[in-house]
């Protein structure tokens, strides 16, 4: 398990760069992933997606389906890709500190 240090914080990550210990999530993690993902600046819309993912995960124990994410935030999938170039799974969920998507992806 690799360990990343960023702005004085340490994060355990897996080989795809997802948090291996979800308790370590913090604003510094978002900063760190932002650079990896090639996002120039975090806007309010980015945070709207991240907060929605976290709320949904806390409440339901799963990441929302893409259509639910779209419906609740009001962002079409195209716009979500503009915000997070690697998409809602690899981009947004990683940033929000959710477990890595599984299944035949």
């Amino acid at each position: 398990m690799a360990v990343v240090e960023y702005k004085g914080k340490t994060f355990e990550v897996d080989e795809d760069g997802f948090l291996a210990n979800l308790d370590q999530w913090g604003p510094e993690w978002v900063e760190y992933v932002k650079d990896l993902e090639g996002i120039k600046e975090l806007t309010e819309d980015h945070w709207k997606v991240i907060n929605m993912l976290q709320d949904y995960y806390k409440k339901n124990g799963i990441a929302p389906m893409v259509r639910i994410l779209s419906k609740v935030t009001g962002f079409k999938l195209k716009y979500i890709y503009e915000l997070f170039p690697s998409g809602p799974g690899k981009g947004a969920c990683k940033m929000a500190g959710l477990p890595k998507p599984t299944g035949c992806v």
Partner: protein
Amino acid sequence: MAERITDIGPPHYSKFLPPIIKDNYGKWASHEILEPGVLKHTAESGAEIYSVRVGSPRIITTLFARDICALADKYCGGYLRFTSRHNIEFLVTDKAQLEPLKAELKKAGLPIGGTGHSVTNIVHTQGWIHCHTPAIDASGIVKAVMDDLFEYFGSHKLPAQVRISLACCLNMCGAVHCSDIAICGVHRTPPKIMHEKLRHLCEIPTTIASCPTGAIRPHPDKNLKSVIVNEPRCMYCGNCYTMCPALPCFDSEKGGVALLVGGKVSNAKSPPAFSRLAVPYIPNNPPRWPETVAAIRKILIKYAEGANKWERVGEWIERIGWEKFFEVCDIPFTFQHIDDYKFQAYDTYRTSMHFKF
């Protein structure tokens, strides 16, 4: 993102058609199989094209790809194609090139065949080369089986074509559920639960919902945030591991091969059919899997002896009856053969007095 090109799709196939196929597209009159592995198509215009089919191991190196490209350049004007069972077809327009091409293929060790009533290539999956859920290897077993059945690849000795497929777990990527003979990887142990890691790696509700028998439920200790498996209910499908990396279920001693028979996809004579369980378990025995190879050969030989011309494996079994199939192939009938999955299982029981002793 600046220079990114996206959503352009595959190149149009017409760019890679030999001129003779382009000219006669949709205007073919007839075809014949000249010999095992060699087809001749005749167009309405009288134009002829020969395809020489050779086996491929599916997983190939770029060097191999370059070698077949060189052959296509030399004999086929640079044209070749892959079939839906991963055979390679060299498309020859000039009849004079046919014999030299065949001679060079033979020299290169590329087996010509896979047409007509043969055992053609085995559709298979990733196995231990690349996947994380397999119970068996793919390439290794395929190599062992095709080595054993090689005589049937380049000949037309069988009553009908026999399609063999392999899937390394019962996700069944490929065609095992609809093949004459199918090799499928099965586990025989319930998943091991990594309680401490589970909540960081998995969505618990998704994991619970992935179980077809409802054997998984939340851990009674609320602080643990994990799951427990009701082992008598678990049939070791491995679905929960697909959803949750903290539930590994591969056991090198217990995983192994199941053989299924009698499936088909064509509508010729009889409707398409699913393949059904013939041998519930054969141990993994790398690198040559001799027990698996022997079991497949036995089924194939008995089929070749017993079936009428044009009869697929499933049609042969339906005609003689499953009890006869188990008898002639000398396969012990066990409780694993009896379907017990939900309501549909009832339809697979015998509700008649018609049977053979």
